[in-house]
C-alpha cells in the first residue's frame, strides 16, 4: 500500500480487521516521508505488520523507478525508526523454513533447530545432533520475500513492461470493471513470471506483451486459496489470501485505487488443503 494517502487507503482494508491506531498513522506519515527522502526512493510502500509474541514489526518497502528490481525492505517496531533488512538469500530462506513458531519481536532472537542425523553405517550408526541457528532478522527478511513471492498481487494492466524491460506503473490504467474484477484471471502475481512458459502457444498468442508479463493468480494451487469478496455491494473488491492469512488486497473497481497489505503472524497456512 502506497504511503501516499495511507490514512485514506488503510480504510479500504479496515473491513478485514486491519486498522492502524491514530498514533501509528501519524508516526508513519512522518517517518515514511523521511525514509523516502533519505533513500531517494521513487515510491515507498507500507508493506504491513508482522505480529510477534512480545512486539510487532512494521514493514515498509521502497522502490526505485523499476518496481521489480532493487526494492528495499525496512522494519520498525515503533513506526519511527526504520532498519534495513538484509535481502533474503536462498540459504536464508532454506534455513528460516526450519524455524517454527511465531516471531518474538526481538530481531536478535535466535531460533534453534535441532536435527538428528545418523552418522556411520550399520551397527556403528551414531545419532548426531546438528543445531541450526536462525536469526529472527533473517527469518523476517525471508518470510517477507516469500510472501512477496507467493501472494503479492496487482490488477492486470496496472503495471507495464517498457521496452527497456523496466516495470513501471501504467499511467493509463483506469481500473478493472466490476465484471473483470470478479475474475481471478485479472489479477497478477507481482513477481517475475514463472509459469508463463507453461501456457500453450495459442494462449500466449492472445497476450499483450506489455501487460501480460506476469502470472495470473487463476492457476494458483490449491484452487480456492484466494477469497474474493465484494464489499459495499460491488463498490470495493477485497481479495484475501488463505495461504498467507492476513494478506489482503483491495481494489475499487473502475478506479486506479488498489493496494495490498499484510497484517499477520508471518506463518504460512500449511493446513490449507484440509481447510477448504
Amino acid at each position, binding site marked *: 500500500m502506497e504511503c501516499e494517502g495511507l490514512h485514506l487507503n488503510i480504510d479500504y482494508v479496515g473491513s478485514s480487521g486491519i486498522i492502524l491506531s491514530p*498514533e501509528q498513522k501519524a508516526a508513519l506519515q512522518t517517518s515514511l516521508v523521511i525514509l523516502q527522502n533519505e533513500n531517494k526512493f521513487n515510491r515507498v510502500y507500507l508493506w504491513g505488520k508482522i505480529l510477534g509474541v512480545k512486539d510487532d514489526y512494521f514493514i515498509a518497502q521502497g522502490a526505485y523507478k523499476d518496481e521489480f528490481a532493487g526494492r528495499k525492505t525496512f522494519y520498525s517496531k515503533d513506526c519511527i525508526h526504520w532498519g534495513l533488512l538484509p535481502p533474503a538469500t536462498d540459504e536464508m530462506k532454506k534455513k528460516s523454513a526450519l524455524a517454527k513458531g511465531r516471531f518474538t519481536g526481538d530481531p536478535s532472537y535466535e531460533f534453534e533447530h535441532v536435527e538428528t542425523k545418523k552418522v556411520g553405517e550399520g551397527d556403528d550408526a551414531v545419532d548426531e545432533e546438528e543445531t541450526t541457528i536462525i536469526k529472527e532478522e533473517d527469518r523476517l527478511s525471508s518470510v517477507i520475500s516469500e510472501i512477496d513471492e507467493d501472494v503479492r498481487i496487482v490488477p492486470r494492466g496496472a503495471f507495464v513492461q517498457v521496452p527497456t524491460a523496466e516495470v513501471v506503473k501504467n*499511467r493509463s490504467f483506469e481500473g478493472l470493471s466490476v465484471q473483470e474484477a470478479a475474475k481471478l484471471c485479472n489479477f497478477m502475481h507481482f513477481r517475475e513470471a514463472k509459469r508463463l512458459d507453461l501456457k500453450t502457444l495459442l494462449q500466449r498468442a492472445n497476450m499483450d506483451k506489455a501487460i501480460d508479463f506476469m502470472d495470473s493468480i487463476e492457476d494458483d494451487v490449491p484452487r480456492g486459496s484466494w*477469497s474474493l469478496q465484494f464489499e459495499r*455491494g460491488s463498490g470495493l473488491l477485497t481479495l484475501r489470501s488463505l495461504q498467507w492469512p492476513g494478506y489482503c488486497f483491495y481494489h475499487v473497481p473502475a478506479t486506479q485505487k488498489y493496494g495490498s497489505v499484510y497484517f499477520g503472524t508471518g506463518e504460512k497456512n500449511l493446513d490449507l488443503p484440509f481447510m477448504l
Partner: protein
Amino acid sequence: MSEGEATPVPDGGVTGKEKEFLKAKSYLLTASTNTGINLYDHLSRVLGKILDERPDNVVDIFEDISKDSKRTKFTSDANTVQDKVDRSTEVALAQVQRKLFTKGSDDGEDDVAQDDEVETPLPNIMELCFFFEQAGIGLNREEMIRVWLALKSLVDNHPLQHVRFWGKIFGTEQNYYVAEVEYREGDEEEEEEEERCSISVSFHRLHVLFCILLALLCLFLAVVIIVVVVVVVVVVVVVVAVVVVVVVVVVVAVAEGVVLVIVEVLVVAVVAVAVGVVVEVVVVVVAVVAGVLVAVAVVVGVVVVMEVVVVVVVVEVVVVVVAVAVIVEAASVVVVQVIGLVIVIVVIIVVVLVVVVVADIVAVVVVVVVVVVVVVAVVMMAVVIVIVPEEPQEDEVAEKEGEEEGDEEEVEEDDTPKPDFKPPPTVPKEDNRTGANKKTYFVCNDPGKPWVKLPLVQPNQITVARMIKKFMTGRLDAPVVSYPPFPGNESNYLRAQIARISAGTHISPLGFYQFDEEEEEEEEGEGRDHFVENIDFEGIPVRELADPSLGNWVHHVQHILPQGRCSWWNPVQKNEDDFEDEEEEEEREEPDEPTPEEGPALLAPLTEDEEVGNMPAWTPALSSALIPQYSIAVIHSNLWPGAHAFAFEKKFENVYIGHGQKYKSENYSPPAPPPIQEEFPSGPEITETEDPTPEEEAALRAAQQEAAEAAEEMEEAEEEEDEDD
C-alpha cells in the same frame, strides 16, 4: 514578392518537395480500415489538446494523451449492454442498508423521549470502537456504525436484556457479523413459541378463544331453534287436530239434527280442550328436554322419536275424542259418523306427517350445522394443544431413531447377525442459559441484512470441531465436509467455534465480576457458574493490567470440558428402576465409574492458561508508548489469533476478528481412521472339516448296515419271544 503571385501553382510546375509533401499528406489522410479515422486528424486533435491543456513533460505522456483521445472518440453515446456498468449489487445493498438509517417517522419526537427514558440494552459501540482503535484493533468506523445500527434493529425486534457485538468471522465467500445477546427472563421461550406457531398454522390463543365462543353461540342458537321448531310442530298438530275434530263434529251435528248438537258440542269441546291442554303441556316439557338433549350433541334420532311419539299421542287423543263422540251419538248416526271418522283420520294423518317431515328437515339441517361447528372447534383446540407443547424436533427424532433401532434388533433376531457394538451414549446438550449455551448468538452477512439466530450447541459438535480445521464459507446452510464427520451444517460449526472462542478468550479485569455471596454456600460443591458485577470495582491501573504476569485478568466464561459441556455429565447412567439387579450392577459398574473431567474454575486468572507451543497464551500491551499515562491496556490472544480485549478504568470489552481458527504450533493432521476390526477367533467350532474319503464313507455305511441288521434281528427275536408267551 506578394502572396498573390506565389499562390497560383503553374500547371505541371509542382516542385519535387511539394510532391513529396502531398504524397505524405495523402498517406497520413488515409483512413484506417478498422476504425475509420486517419492519422492526420488524430495528430491535429492530439496536438490541439496538448496546446490547450499544456501539461508538464508532455513528451512522457504523449502516448497516454493519444490513447485518451482515441478512446473518447469511440465512446458511443448509445447505451449498449456492454457499456453499461452493472452497479446493481451496490445499489441493492445500499437500499437494504438505508433502512438502518431511517427512523420511525410516525411519532418521531415521542420516540426520542421514550428512548431516553427506557434503559436500552444497546451498548455504546462507538466508545468501544474508539478504545479498540487506539490499540489498532477492530473495523472501520463506518462499518462499526452500520453494525451498531444493525444491533439497534435487533434490540427493537427482540425482547433482549443484554446485547454485545461479539466480533466478525471471515468466510471464503461472505463474512459473519456476530451479536451476542441475552433474552429477558422467559421472553425467549415465548418468542420461540410464537415463531413456531407462525411457521405452522399461525394460530394465536385469541383466535382459539374466539373460535370456541363462536361454537358455543352456534350451539345455543341451534338449541333454541330446535325447541322452537318442536313447540311449533306440537302446537300446530294439536290445533289442527282440534279444528278438524270440531269441523267434523259440526258437520256430523248438522247432519244429525239440532237436538244432539248442544250435548255433543259440549262434550266434545270439553273433552278435546282438556286433552289438548294436557298434551300441550306434556309435549312442551318433553320438547324442552329433547332440546337440551340435542344441545348436548348429535342425536337427530331423539328429535324424530319425540315427534313420532307426539304424533302418536295426538292421533290417539283424536281417536279417543272421536270414539267418545261416537259413543255419545250412538247408533243413529253410525253411517255419517263412520264417513266423518275416516275423513278426520286421513286429514289428520296427512297434515301431521307433512308438518313433521318439514320440521324434521329443518331440525336435521340445524343439527348438522351444529355438529360441523363443534367438530371444527374441537379440531382447532386439539391442533393448538398438540402443537404448543412440541419440543425441539431434533431430540425427538434422535430418540425415535434410537427406539426404532432397538425395535429392529428385536424383530430381526433370526436375520443376519448384527454387530453388538453400541455407540457411546450421546452427551446431552446443555440447556438454554447454562454452560456453553449461556448466551444466544445472532449472525448476519452484512449489517442491515436480517439477523439469523444460531441453534444451540451440542457437545458432540464441540468435540468434533476441536478435531477439524475448516474455513467458513459464509453460507449458514453450507455442509461441513470433514473427517471426522461434523454433525450439522455450517451454522452449527460456527456456533461451536463461537462457543470455543468465547470460553477461551472472554476475559475481564480481576474484580470486575464476583461470585454471588448468597449462592456461594449452596453451590460450594459443584463448580460455580454464576457471578454478578462488582459494584465496588474501582478499576485496575493500566500498567498492572499490561503486566506480563497476567494475574489481573480473569476468564468470565466457563471452560468447556473435553466432553463438550461446561458441567460434567456422567455417561454411566444407572437405571434406578431395576431394584432387583442393584447389587449386581453396583459390583459391575464400580470399576467403570469414570472420573469427572475438570477444568479451570470460572473467574480463574489467565496465569493458569496453558502455554501455546512455548509461548504465553496472551500478549499484553499498552496502546501507546509515547503517551503512556493516557494509554489503555490491551491484550491479544495467541491461542485464538484475532481475539483481543482492552481495559481502561472501569471499562473493558472483548472482540474477535478473524477466521475462527485456533492456533496450533504443529501442522494439522486429521485423526487416523479407527483400527481395523479384529477377525473372529478361529476355533474348532468354525473350522471346516475335511470331506471323508470314499473308503471311509463305505466303512461307515457298512457299519451302519451291520448295526441296522443287528437291531432287526434283536427285534425279531423279541417278537418271537412275545409270541412264545
